[in-house]
């Protein structure tokens, strides 16, 4: 069984690559995928401590993936990313523990991620 700390789904490549770069520097193990469908497939094949999902992705969006993941593992921390500040409350209400508003400048999001992995 594939065992990593984080499952990351982000379709926009600069955001995904920057996050990959930052996670590698922190020696965090992760799988990165580009779509919600791939995220679900990967989730079913592995074990993760945390799932970080972009909300706006082609096919399944972040909330839809989160709903399915919660059905399988209700206690797993789910974190969302969105570029729409107005979506934050809705995402929190759907059950995301944290919602990051993009662009992710600075390293506040990394501190929060590390907090969940500790």
């Amino acid at each position: 069984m594939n065992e990593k700390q984080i499952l990351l789904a982000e379709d926009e490549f600069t955001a995904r690559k920057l996050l990959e770069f930052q996670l590698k520097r922190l020696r965090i193990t992760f799988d990165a995928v580009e779509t919600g469908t791939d995220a679900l497939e990967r989730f079913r094949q592995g074990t993760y401590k945390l799932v970080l999902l972009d909300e706006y992705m082609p096919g399944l969006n972040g909330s839809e993936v989160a709903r399915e993941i919660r059905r399988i593992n209700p206690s797993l921390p789910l974190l969302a990313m969105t570029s729409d500040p107005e979506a934050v409350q809705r995402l929190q209400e759907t059950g995301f523990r944290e919602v990051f508003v993009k662009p992710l400048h600075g390293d506040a999001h990394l501190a929060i991620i590390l907090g969940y992995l500790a």
Partner: protein
Amino acid sequence: MSIIRLPELIDQILHDLSSLGFPILIRNQYEPPAEQCTLQDPDRISKILTVFFMQLESSRKVSSYRLEWDYREGVLSATLLGKFSPEMENSFIHTRTSLQCLGGTLSFEKEGVLFTLPLASSQKPSMDPSKGPSREFSEAPPLPPANDSATYRLEGSHLEKGKSVFDPEVLQKACPDEEFSRQLMEEFLSHCRNHLQELEHLLTDEHPLDLVKIHRIAHSIKGGGLNVGALRLAEAARSMEQQAKAGMLGSLENALSRLKDEESLLESIYREQYERKANPPG
């Protein structure tokens, strides 16, 4: 109940903005409401007017705007406050008369001063382009005393003045590795060029417009632009994203042309900065 004849009013605004040089592409797309609207229907008025101002924004001739409607005793007046390009200030002078029908005022900002021209007044402002606008028109004529009045205000999300074409610090903060940043930037530019081609194809295609796809591509350029510090490109993409979302088919071509301009500007500025860094003078 107070009545505004929206169809005539909007047609007149379209005509006036057209004569000011704004590309009013929505003319064919937009159907004015057949019936009259009442002042008790401010949401509808706002929605219709927002369409115009998204046009203004995407035309790049105005970088911010505020519109105020005032209705008193059967007179509807409009105040349009905007930051216009110098070119627009000149063309404005020639079309001042046609705007009078709005019974309002038109204002613009030049060198940090807000000028308001009293379009409703019969007084002839001595606007000499060589001297620039005069401060004596900085006050709108007094409106009749309020009675049966209502005021609505629209403020647009707009381009922030002074936004950078390329801000290298954005990427440096997110990622201190120069080589990684350079590769990411090159990849972003290449993605952008592909996206622009795809948008061009989508907009010239004879099939019905795929607004979802256009929205997704614009969203992606916006997100990428914000990540790499291409702030003006991101702003242009945000504008297109909103237009696609609002189904403003007529303004998308204009938005694409702005995106293309911003992309080539970004590319030339980025290359210049990169080369200067790689080969410092001396």
